[in-house]
């Protein structure tokens, strides 16, 4: 690769590198002097005791100083990274071919997970968790990735779906399969309700209002004790049945009817396939919607709202349908969450969930279905993978995310696939695709 760093700029490099390292070290000194330099703790009688750790502080600052020099040298040696990747064309076509195989391979693997890991309850549970987040990610992708509306309160619809099912099932004895569409419709309704006031807001303002909406829903659930049980939550939520046949050990259970020995794993496998089907439904609908005028209008809205108005597209209904569609999938996922857990409480629907789902969408590459699935697998699977590292788990995870964003600033799959083509579909570079202004 051609290196634009000329010899002249390298010659003056030494002083520059030294200066840069010195600044980094200084910043580190200021940051760490209180965090690491002084350790405080409550003494046995409640008084404050502290001791200094200047040795640790000095070594950290030295590491930052040295690391900064090494980083800068590496950067100059490699040249600008990430702008052009020089990969031979044959390898590139091979990679493109491999990329085409990723989605079917993942799907087949997902279908086979309960067969391969039948005995491993832990893996099955993890699979269900990952798929729940895949579904949430795909649902939010409609709002954030396609329509370009930054929604920080997505968990509200997840909560609406979960509570809809829990309340309908415990109070009226409705079955999961009746409640599932109802939960979706109710969540979509709440999505519209949120949509109306925020239609005129853009960008940061939209994000703040949606964030507040998510919190409002949670606070209402906590405080409306007579309906939702408040912080105690709702327990005894019925499990889903197989077309009316419960998956229990009793004589009328599915196992007895099929004449096989009952095992609690049956229910887990059943749940796994339900969430897989729901996620695939979300994916299928989203892919279909993208090729319909409404989906194209969402993407056009993300690209340029003013041009949309000039073309006679009703911005209001277009935004509302995006909110409602995203919310509906969130509601489905919520109903599934309630039936899987058997118990829900407001604690499951904090802002952290919204942030996690949004992170999945952004890391995956906004608008890319495969990217979102991969990101959900990495994020949720990654959490579990790093569990062995205990307290360093979040640190490792944070570093991994920072590296990913340096390597792929527009997400794992940043390019956009066209929805219609005459001769051949060519991916559109992420530089051209807008993120939307909210």
């Amino acid at each position, binding site marked *: 690769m051609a290196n634009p760093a000329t010899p002249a700029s390298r010659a003056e490099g030494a002083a520059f590198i030294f200066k840069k390292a010195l600044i980094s070290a200084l910043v580190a000194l200021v940051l760490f002097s209180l965090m690491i330099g002084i350790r405080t703790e409550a003494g046995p009688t409640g008084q404050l005791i502290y001791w200094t750790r200047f040795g640790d502080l000095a070594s950290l600052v030295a590491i930052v100083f040295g690391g900064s020099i090494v980083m800068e040298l590496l950067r100059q040696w490699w040249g600008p990274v990430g702008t052009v990747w020089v990969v031979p064309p044959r390898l590139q076509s091979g990679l493109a071919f491999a990329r085409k195989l990723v989605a079917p391979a993942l799907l087949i693997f997902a279908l086979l997970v309960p067969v391969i890991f039948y005995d491993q309850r832990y893996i099955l549970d993890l699979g269900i968790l990952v798929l729940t987040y895949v579904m949430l990610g795909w649902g939010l992708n409609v709002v954030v990735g396609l329509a370009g509306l930054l929604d920080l309160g997505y968990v509200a619809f997840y909560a609406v779906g979960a509570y809809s099912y829990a309340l309908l099932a415990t109070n009226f004895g409705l079955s999961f399969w009746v409640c599932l569409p109802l939960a979706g419709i109710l969540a979509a309704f709440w999505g519209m309700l949120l949509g109306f006031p925020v239609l005129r807001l853009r960008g940061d303002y939209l994000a703040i209002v949606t964030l507040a909406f998510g919190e409002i829903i949670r606070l209402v659930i906590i405080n409306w004790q007579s309906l939702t049980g408040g912080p105690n939550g709702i327990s005894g939520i019925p499990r889903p049945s197989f077309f009316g046949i419960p998956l229990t050990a009793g004589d009328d259970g599915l196992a007895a009817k099929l004449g096989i020995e009952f095992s609690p794993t049956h229910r887990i496998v059943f749940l796994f396939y339900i969430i897989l089907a729901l996620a695939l439904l979300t994916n299928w*609908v989203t892919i*279909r*919607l993208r090729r*319909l*005028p*409404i989906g*194209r*209008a969402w*993407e*056009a809205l993300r*690209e*340029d709202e*003013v*041009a*949309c*108005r*000039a*073309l*006679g*597209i*009703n*911005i209001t209904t277009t935004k509302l*349908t995006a909110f409602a569609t995203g919310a509906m999938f969130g509601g489905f996922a919520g109903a599934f969450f309630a039936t899987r857990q058997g118990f829900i409480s407001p604690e499951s629907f904090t802002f952290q969930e919204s942030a996690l789902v949004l992170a999945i969408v952004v890391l995956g590459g906004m608008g890319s279905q495969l990217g979102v699935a991969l990101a959900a697998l990495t994020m949720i699977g990654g959490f579990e993978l790093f569990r062995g590292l205990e307290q360093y788990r979040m640190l490792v995870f944070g570093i991994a995310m920072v590296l990913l964003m340096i390597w792929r600033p527009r997400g794992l799959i940043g390019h*956009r696939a*066209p*929805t*219609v*083509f*005459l*001769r*051949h*579909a*060519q991916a*559109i*570079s992420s530089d*051209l*695709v*807008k993120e939307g202004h909210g």
Partner: protein
Amino acid sequence: MSSDGILSVDGLTMRFGGIVAVNDLSFAAERRKITALIGPNGAGKTTVFNCITGFYKPTSGTMRLSHDNGAEIRLERLNDFRISKQAKVARTFQNIRLFPGMTALENLMVAQHNALMRASGLTFLGLIGAPSWRAAEKAAIDLAKFWLDRIGLLDRADDAAGNLPYGDQRRLEIARAMCTEPALLCLDEPAAGLNARESGALSDLLLSIRAGQGTSILLIEHDMSVVMEISDRVVVMDYGVKIAEGSPEDVRDDPKVIAAYLGVEDEEVAKVEQELGL
């Protein structure tokens, strides 16, 4: 209003606080004709456009649009997207506003949104892939292909709009506006930034649109070679008021127009000052 007029603007005034951008402007655009709106920078041409296309709500005045079937629409009573959807007025922008991350073909498909929404049964028929929807989609692609062919971009249909050269983007924006099948096409400086050959091709395109589709065209333009070549009628504005109107030849020789563009001789300024007693 004459029987063959498509747009008649009467007493249009637009104020932004204390600034009067357009003051009591009246003009008419004829059906199947090209009307040019010209004037020096800051004359209020784009403001007039924004009023006609519903981006601004005028302070006062009326704008009547009469369709081929005789229906008359009061544009100042419609707003926002309804101007394009119901009144069939399409527009382009001074600084190109394509959807850069979508292909040229997709841009033209988005333009047919309202027709396609109806055909897709508000998405539901489309979701199940009903045959009527498939037929409508194919017809929409054919219309897009027709326009891509007209602007000479059929080979680049699958390229991102943002990757096209500047001149192609200008033409694509006109094609996108035409895909909404408008009665009146409003073009805001379509020749801006084009070289002589490209603006020649643009003139041909606009003339062929007038002849082929019978669309009335209202355009703002600074490139006088384009204006003089294709306009049937020219309206000249300066400081928010109309200073001249007529055929391109009349307007070209009008002393007021020359004064607005080139300024006036020192003696004339002195004469006016004398009359005003300054």
